[in-house]
Structure formats: structure tokens, C-alpha cells
């Protein structure tokens, strides 16, 4: 993996911010895009663009094939058994909402329990909370351990006869923890409870195989895996998706309509109301292809080394406390610094051309757990370098002197 060649694929990395070279370490929020992703979309717009499905003219057929090939490509990427188990959504958030609503409509009754963890992103928390409120069900929140890991024992005991669905993040967007989802799914399945995996922070950093995990649902966002905004993926097992009622209504998800009777279309279309974002679907395919062309294993190895280096270097800084110190982590480095407000540090780092995120990272329960108001979060992607980490550490030290 030649990092200098890779960096050339991302034009934005050559930007200067306040006259300083951009060091982009906000990858957990969104990743940058390689040229090939943008070119794939431009090519579609300028050569083949047409609304998909049901058109009999050439452009429509080409756009439709491109869209459905993207679906197939993504199904293969996560090892789905069937292509129609891939539902395109706007992103992870919409995927969670879709399942919370549709699965909930069918399966959640008063008094039932929905189990999530304390480290969920708001997007994997609020939809379940809203479902629980609508159905007078209970949202059970499994706390995490001090190091930011989950206890399998506590997880097992949190599952009761009333638990109807469990939703857990694969990788925490604040703590960086890689949760043992395969093991958790096995435990949940022993109690016959389906599991939703939020893969928003794992799909770009780990190998994800839905059949190996045996998850019932899994979701991720295109924009966090070097793809465009406005597209995401919901994977669901055929049987579950088949049994669920549709979510949104409209064009595409209909097989036939009369004034009295609506027949819904089959999978995956049943869950894709309205004109799909077919251009972004093709952009997402290009992004995944970009990753696969480099080689997912190489990416994982590179990021693993970089992450270990970054952890080590950051821990050299006096007064810096890592938030999330689980044994298995990836990409995300969240920390606080003695007497320094994350907002101040984020603001000043920005002046040095370094983009990190500060704040609660849409995971306020995690902040409440540690009794902090926020963290500084640096998150690495495949185009980051050790030199960039060195610059980060250098500037953290400098700014620390000013701020304290």
C-alpha cells in the first residue's frame, strides 16, 4: 500500500487551511472521496442519467442496470446471501428508523423490551426510544465498563423473555471500541432475539461478513466509507424483511394500486419508496471498489499500525486522558486534557490546519457516563500518516501551553 499514491487520489488533502496543509482527522464524521467516486457519478450524470426502473428506453435501462449492479456489488462486499437483502437508504440513521418502525409495527407490543447499549450514537438510540414511547415498550440500556468495553455476562443477563430486538454498534464512534458483535449475536440468538448491527464506524475499517456475523440487520453510511452523501445501506435477512410491513409509501415500492387496494412490491423495492438516489448508489459502489482495489486487508493492517502509533504518541502528552481504553479499538481516538475545554482545543487546532472534532459526538450518554462535557476526537482513515500524527501531537503540546 503506497500511501503517497493513495493521497493523490484525494484532491482535498492538498488543500491549505489558513496557509497550512490540511491534516484531516475528522474521519469518523465523514471521510474524503477519491477521484474515482466523483468520476463515476459525473459519468452517470453526463452519459447515462435517467430515472430508473420501468423505463424502456436505453438511458433508463442503463441507469437501472448500473443501480442494480451496485446493489449486487455491495451484497457481495458484505457477503449477503441475496442481493435483494440490500436496501438503499439515505444513511445509517434512516436504516435504523426504517427497522425501528417496520419491525416495531409488527413485533413490538406494550411491555416489550428493546435492548441497546450506553455507547450508541444518537441515531441508534433515539429511533428505538421513539418506538418504545409509541408502543409503550421499554428501552433497556446496557451500561459499558470503565474502559469502554461491553461485558458479555451483563449483556446476557440484560436479555429477558420480553426482549424483542437488540441493537448494538459494531464500533463506537466515541470510544473506538470494537464490540464482540459475533459473540453477542450468538448469545441473543440463543434467546431467539434478532440483532441489528450499526456498522457506521466499522464497515470502512474492518472486514464485515453478515453471514459470518449472522446478524439480522446491519446498516452503514456511504459518506463514511469514502462514498457520497445521501446514500446508505440496510442489510436485512430475507425472512425478516419479508415479514415486515413497508416503511414509506410511494412510487417504486408498489406493485399495483387501485383506489381500494394496494399491493406492495417485492424485496428490495418494498422498502425503497420514491426515486432512489441511484447516482449515489453508483458512487458508493465506486468507493467500495476503491477500497477493494487497494485490498481491505492491507487497509486494515495500515490503519492498525497507524492507530497504535497514534495511541502511543498521544499518551506521551502530559495531562491527556484517553476516553475509551478497551483492548480492541479502531480508528477513533477520543481524549480530554486537564483543564482544557475540548471546544478551545478544537478551535485552536483548526488554526494549525488540523481538523478534529470536539464535543459530544452525538453520544451524550457516553459523556454522562464519564461525567465530562465532551472530548476531543481524532479519527484516522486510510490516507492519514504518522507524520500527520506527529504534527497533531506537536500542536496539542503547543496549544496546551497557551491554554493553561
Amino acid at each position, binding site marked *: 500500500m503506497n500511501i503517497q499514491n493513495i493521497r493523490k487520489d484525494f484532491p482535498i488533502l492538498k488543500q491549505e487551511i489558513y496557509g497550512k496543509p490540511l491534516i484531516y482527522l475528522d474521519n469518523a464524521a465523514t471521510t474524503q472521496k477519491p477521484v474515482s467516486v466523483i468520476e463515476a457519478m459525473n459519468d452517470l450524470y453526463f452519459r447515462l442519467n435517467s430515472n*430508473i*426502473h*420501468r423505463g*424502456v428506453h436505453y438511458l433508463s*435501462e442503463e441507469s*437501472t*442496470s448500473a443501480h*442494480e449492479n451496485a446493489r449486487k456489488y455491495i451484497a457481495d462486499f458484505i457477503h449477503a446471501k441475496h442481493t435483494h437483502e440490500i436496501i438503499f437508504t439515505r444513511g445509517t440513521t434512516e436504516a435504523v428508523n426504517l427497522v425501528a418502525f417496520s419491525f416495531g409495527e409488527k413485533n413490538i407490543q406494550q411491555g416489550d423490551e428493546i435492548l441497546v447499549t450506553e455507547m450508541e450514537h444518537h441515531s441508534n438510540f433515539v429511533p428505538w426510544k421513539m418506538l418504545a414511547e409509541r408502543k409503550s415498550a421499554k428501552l433497556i440500556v446496557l451500561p459499558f465498563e470503565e474502559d469502554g468495553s461491553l461485558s458479555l455476562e451483563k449483556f446476557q443477563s440484560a436479555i429477558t423473555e420480553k426482549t424483542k430486538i437488540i441493537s448494538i454498534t459494531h464500533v463506537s464512534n466515541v470510544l473506538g471500541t470494537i464490540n464482540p458483535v459475533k459473540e453477542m449475536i450468538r448469545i441473543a440468538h440463543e434467546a431467539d432475539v434478532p440483532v441489528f448491527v450499526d456498522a457506521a464506524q466499522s464497515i470502512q475499517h474492518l472486514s464485515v461478513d453478515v453471514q459470518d456475523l449472522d446478524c439480522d440487520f446491519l446498516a452503514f453510511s456511504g459518506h463514511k466509507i469514502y462514498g457520497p452523501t445521501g446514500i446508505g445501506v440496510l442489510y436485512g435477512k430475507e425472512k425478516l424483511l419479508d415479514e415486515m410491513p413497508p416503511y414509506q409509501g410511494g412510487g417504486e415500492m408498489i406493485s*399495483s394500486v387501485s383506489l381500494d387496494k394496494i399491493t406492495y412490491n417485492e424485496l428490495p423495492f418494498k422498502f425503497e419508496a420514491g426515486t432512489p438516489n441511484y447516482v449515489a448508489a453508483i458512487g458508493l459502489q465506486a468507493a467500495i471498489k476503491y477500497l477493494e482495489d487497494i485490498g481491505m486487508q492491507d487497509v486494515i493492517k495500515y490503519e492498525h499500525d497507524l492507530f497504535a502509533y497514534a495511541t502511543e504518541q498521544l499518551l506521551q502528552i502530559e495531562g491527556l486522558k484517553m476516553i475509551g481504553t478497551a483492548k480492541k479499538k479502531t480508528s477513533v481516538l477520543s481524549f480530554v486534557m486537564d483543564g482544557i475545554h475540548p471546544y478551545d482545543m478544537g478551535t485552536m487546532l483548526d488554526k494549525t490546519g488540523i481538523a478534529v472534532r470536539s464535543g459530544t459526538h452525538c453520544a451524550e450518554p457516553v459523556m454522562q457516563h464519564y461525567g465530562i462535557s465532551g472530548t476531543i476526537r481524532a479519527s484516522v482513515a486510510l490516507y492519514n500518516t504518522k507524520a500527520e500524527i506527529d504534527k497533531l501531537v506537536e500542536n496539542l503540546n503547543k496549544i496546551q501551553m497557551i491554554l493553561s
Partner: protein
Amino acid sequence: MSIEKKQNAIIEEFSIFDDWMDKYAYLVDLGNELTPLSPEEKTDDNLIDGCQSKLWIIVELKDGKMRFKADSDAIITKGIASLLIRALEGETPKDVLDAELSFIDKIGLHQHLSPTRSNGLLAMIKRIKAYAMAFNAKA
């Protein structure tokens, strides 16, 4: 004549058209020549609803050979259905099962069999193969 040979015959027939207009005019003729189904035969069970055009198909086994009847409200769909029938009519379930219907491709009509096309032709082939499989298992 084997399915293979019938396919080749069709390919040769179509090779004389260098204009798409003539080719489609011929398809229209083929469609018109196909015996229409009676209203009673156009049952929901026989229907493949392709969204854009409707296609009815009846499959039977007589003396170990497969027999087909088909109809469509769209004439081009019907024309292509008639070609498919011509290639498969009177063959054994086993031969039908094994048949690779590459002639559609070779006469430049592959787009009509694309999975994204909403005319029911791809579903028709799937249904024929499903029947062949069932007949074959019974035999």
C-alpha cells in the same frame, strides 16, 4: 431438430435484417401469427405481470414433450415469446432445462430479457424452466 439447431435457424433468419425497423417489423409479424389465447385461458394463474405489458403462458407435457402457448397485450413481447416457443416447443423437459437461450442475444434482442425490463419475458423463461424441472422430477 435440436434446440441448438432451431436457435441457429432463427439467428440465420434474423441475419438478413441490417435495419432495426425491418427486424421489429418481422417481430410484429411473428407476434401476429402466434395463436391468441382465448379469454378463458387468460387466467391469473397463467399471467406474468410485467408491469408494462402482460404475458400469459400455458405449459403442458404431452407424450414426454413440452408444449407451449403464450399471448401478450404488447406485440413485441408476443413476437419474442413466439421465438422462445419456437425454440423450445416439442422438446423434452431435460433438453429444455439444459437449453442456453443465447439466440436472443445474438439477434440483438437481449435488452428484452434484462432483469430490469418490465415485460415479463425473463419471468417467462424462469417459469418454463420451473415447469421443466417439475416434469423432469416426475419422469
